[in-house]
């Protein structure tokens, strides 16, 4: 360890304490994230209860196929992330880089599909705002549905962009040989973050894409 002074910070007694602290800190952070998205879920629940038909109508404007593909893409990226953490625990530098790169590619693919979906909506004037038009009943309520759609998926996509940025950092550090079987905390922590982002999508998908399909 002496060759890697950056691994144990000055104020910790040992690596065990440092890892446990980081892990607890990450979980506390994920708890705040639960509540952050929780505010949006609360708003969604209120309006879905108030305007069930409009929400069904709004949901039918979304593309289930693209949504389902994206769900699968994100699950794949969670797998590759889990494997990156696994190889970090084993201390295999090349495999860490490989699986992190795969995760980034899958994350970028997800964002690409999302961009396609957004551009369709914007093209059809379905972006809430001054240019919003919806020919059909419940125009206002459908707007509220789409507002939730854009805010929730937008927040989710924003978290993914941050996650990708963090993974690029990890790759740089991994190539410099920072991570070993003794010290791999950052990989594990960012892994937790990425899985959390996946979980948010696991809920967003049925709540936004799959209501009133029958």
């Amino acid at each position: 360890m002496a060759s890697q002074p950056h691994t144990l910070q000055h104020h910790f007694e040992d690596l065990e304490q440092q890892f446990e602290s980081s892990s607890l800190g990450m979980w506390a952070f994920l708890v705040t994230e639960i509540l952050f998205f929780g505010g949006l879920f609360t708003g969604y629940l209120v309006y879905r209860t108030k305007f069930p038909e409009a929400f069904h109508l709004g949901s039918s404007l979304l593309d289930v196929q693209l949504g389902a593909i994206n769900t699968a893409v994100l699950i794949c990226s969670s797998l590759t992330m889990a494997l990156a953490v696994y190889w970090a625990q084993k201390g295999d530098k090349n495999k860490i880089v490989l699986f992190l790169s795969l995760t980034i590619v899958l994350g970028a693919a997800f964002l690409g599909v999302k961009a396609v979906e957004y551009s369709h909506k914007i093209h059809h004037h379905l972006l809430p705002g001054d240019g919003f038009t919806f020919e059909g009943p419940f125009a206002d309520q459908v707007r509220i549905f789409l507002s939730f759609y854009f805010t929730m998926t937008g927040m989710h996509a924003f978290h993914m962009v941050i996650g990708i940025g963090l993974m690029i950092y990890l790759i740089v550090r991994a190539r410099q040989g920072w991570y070993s079987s003794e010290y791999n905390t950052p990989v594990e922590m960012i892994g937790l973050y990425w899985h959390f982002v996946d979980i948010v999508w696991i809920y967003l998908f049925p709540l936004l894409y799959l209501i009133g399909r029958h």
Partner: protein
Amino acid sequence: MGTAVFNPREDQLAEHTNGSTKNYLNAGFSAKSWLLTIDHKRIAILYLLSITFFFFIGGIFAVLIRLELLTPQGDLMQAETYNKMFTMHGMVMIFFFLIPSIPAVLGNFLIPLMIGAKDLAFPRLNLLSWYIYFIGGLFTLAAIVFGGVDTGWTFYTPHSSTYSNTNVILAAVGVFVSGFSSILTGLNFLVTIHKMRAPGLTWFRLPLFVWAHYATSIIQVLGTPVVAITIVLVGLERLFHIGIFDPKLGGDPLLFQHLFWFYSHPAVYIMILPAMGVISEIVTCFAKKKIFGYSFIAFSSIAIAVLGFLVWGHHMFTSGQSNYASLVFSFLSFLVAIPSAIKVFNWTATLYKGSVSYQAPMLYAIGFIGLFTIGGLTGIFLGTLAVDVHVHDTYFVVAHFHYIMVGGAIMAYLGGMHFWWPKITGRLYPEGWARFSSLVIFVGFHLTFFPQFIVGYLGMPRRYHVYPDEFQILNVLSTAGATILGIGYLIPLIYFLWSLRYGKKSSTNPWNAKGLEWEQAASPPIKQNFEVTPVVLEDAYEYEPKVWLK
């Protein structure tokens, strides 16, 4: 820890305290050594400077508000200006002074010292928190400089989201950003208290100050993100008319109030719980006696933090929310009163058969108990449904929350500053002036805010720029009191600064207090806090030496 006689490191400590060796203050003098420090003690000083700045900004707004209300007519300023004044007063005081005050200054400085750690768990994150706070502050200052905001600190929709034509976005960004500072500080404390305690320091040996901060951190971590996303939605509503809060587009304005108060009610406990922690430390020290009902005080902090999340609807009894929801929220609001009562009774009982000395921190603490008791009891009025219908949004509410947040939190903050000033700076403040200022603040406070209970029950609504003539007498009293209060707050500022240069040098433990920060750390502490990691062998506040140590 043992008694002073048995402390093997006493000589060493005295050496540090006499300034012959390095401490955290003289460890470096460059701007960089302060602005890029990761030492929790230096970061606490950074916070101290910035919150003092914001306290006086907020104070200037308060003075202008009180001057305007001296007469029933709006003769000092325009209605628009007045509305901006109370908005900025609330926003600056709550988000940039009260919420960071005790946690970010005293908590930051003391928690590692109290638990025998070298630093917080995440020192870099701690520094980042200060920068985030600072950036949030800059946005808020920008909102002030570019013409102010007039939404009230509560940002109620649809006024804030659609109708107001002031700098809502800038102010919202300021609050949003500073919220993350609060979250990260809370997160840092949680992990530190869990993982960084010295050997032997079990949960039930922790000082109550640490328990109180643990409870506070729970609220910061769980509550703040909700208000963050709510403010984002207000911003989106303003920019893109997304309809979520706009009734003209089918939205329900009460949803905003639910989301806002889910955080902003517990936020009151972010301000008062650390204050209670400070009082627990001071009372036990100046009664020279172990605190009465340690575990009840510890658990009541946690109970307040948890129950505090179940009562937000009591801000909405007249809002048009369901009467059934009001019923439930009212019931739960009464439950949260009990843990506060437990604390007050236990502090009082600690004095019984103690050895009570009246140094300035104790006077502030007793002042706190007095003001908090009144503030807490008037909270019962507001939780009572039918009475709240009458007094909601009147000066009764204004008086109530100032008794808690100014009478309570600031009194405790100042008490804590006096108590730990020797530890923070290595200097003693002038005792006579400190006692005098505590008295001035106590008197000025009552004169300012007690009349507001009366004028509130008479029906004077809050946020009124002009008001009916018959309320004038009480408003004049209030303004007179505010003058005294303002002077009371200036006195400590002056003598604290004076003492930095001319104050007597403090010994390691000027109060003969118990606790690692007093017994095992120099005044001011060395950079890494302790020479050796302390080992804790006894409970907190063992003022009576145990037989086996004699």
